[in-house]
Each structure stands twice: as structure tokens, then as C-alpha cells.
């Protein structure tokens, strides 16, 4: 079983608050990802990182920001939460791609965010 953790699991918060969703993994994986998933919809990549001090935006535009100061930690921050940010946020990690080697993303349990 993959060792990737997310906190909190559920968060209900008022509009305008700053929030940080935590994600950590103990597998020493270089790559980490944040996905956003609305009920019944596909996962959309919003941020990814290939290693410490590396962050990139994904396919889906997001007002959130991320940081990667330590290999094991990839927090996502919303400076001012809005109801449109209500969604499930999933964190994942994978090993570095080395030519020809199979790569699997392992997911955390997710954070369900409700912004009132």
C-alpha cells in the first residue's frame, strides 16, 4: 500500500479564508501532483512537481499555488477561498521516469473542500 497522506480529509470554510491542503509521502518519490475532481467528473491536473524547488501548472487553470521545499511535502494553498473552489483535491506521487521504466502514480485519500 502506498504511503501518501493528505490532511484534512474534509474541510468546510467560509468565503475569503486562506487555506492550505497538506500532502506528504514517505516513499521518496521525486514527482508529485495535485488533481481536482468534481463529483462524477474526470480528474484534472492542476499542479505538478518533478522535484524540490520545481513546480508547474497543469492542464486546468487554478487559483491555487503550490510549493515543494522538501521532497516529501507538496502543500497546496488557496489565498482566498470561494464557493467555486468547492471540489475534491487529490494528491499523487510517482518515481522519477528513467527511460523504459514503468511509472505508476499513487494517490492519497483526498481532501473534500466545501466553501460556503
Amino acid at each position: 500500500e502506498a504511503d501518501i497522506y493528505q490532511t484534512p480529509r474534509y474541510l468546510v470554510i467560509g468565503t475569503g479564508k486562506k487555506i492550505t491542503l497538506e500532502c506528504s509521502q514517505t516513499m521518496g518519490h521525486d514527482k508529485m501532483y495535485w488533481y481536482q475532481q468534481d463529483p462524477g467528473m474526470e480528474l484534472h491536473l492542476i499542479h505538478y512537481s518533478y522535484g524540490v524547488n520545481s513546480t508547474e501548472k497543469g492542464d486546468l487553470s487554478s487559483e491555487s499555488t503550490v510549493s515543494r521545499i522538501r521532497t516529501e511535502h507538496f502543500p497546496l494553498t488557496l489565498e482566498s477561498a470561494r464557493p467555486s473552489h468547492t471540489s475534491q483535491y487529490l494528491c499523487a506521487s510517482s518515481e522519477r521516469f528513467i527511460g523504459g521504466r514503468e511509472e505508476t502514480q499513487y494517490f492519497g485519500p483526498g481532501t473534500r473542500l466545501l466553501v460556503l
Partner: protein
Amino acid sequence: EDKVVQSPLSLVVHEGDTVTLNCSYEVTNFRSLLWYKQEKKAPTFLFMLTSSGIEKKSGRLSSILDKKELFSILNITATQTGDSAIYLCAVNGLTGGGNKLTFGTGTQLKVEL
């Protein structure tokens, strides 16, 4: 733009039935295709497929990839109520420096007694 289409979107079967879930894709620089099972929380990994024609099997689940026709199927035999979930197909396309996963919308499977 990379694209993954799954069908059917939803199906309901009786316990013991066999189901086949479909996934077709268009992707630049294909690396692999992955199947995940998602119940109420996060997706759990099922299979990764990289080569055509080689069946991957885990218990009652199996999957195969056709890179020429750009699709994959996931088979579940002798279905059980615990198989009820959303099954996600994702394709890993290689971009400069690393991979990028594109997910389909999923097939919602419900297995009834």
C-alpha cells in the same frame, strides 16, 4: 490535445455477470495506459499497460491494450457487489522532462444481487 474516452458511462449488472469496460485514447508520445478503481475516496491502482496484446490479470480482473487501434478494455468476470465503483482509465503521455496523465470521465459500475 490528449483525449481519453470511456464507455459505457454507466452500467448496472447482476452479481456473477461478466463486464467489459472500454477506453479509447488519443495522446502525443504514448507511454502507458492505466486503470484505476475509485470508490468513495481516492483512486486505487489496478493495472498499467505499455505493450499491445499482453494481458494483465489480477484475480477476476484483466486488461489488454491495442496500441494500433488506440484502445484498452478492462474485463471483470463473476462480478461481486464489492466491484461496484467508478473505473477510471488514464493515459500517460511523455512530455519534455516527464509524464502527464490524462483521465477519462470513468465508467460507473453497479453490481446488484
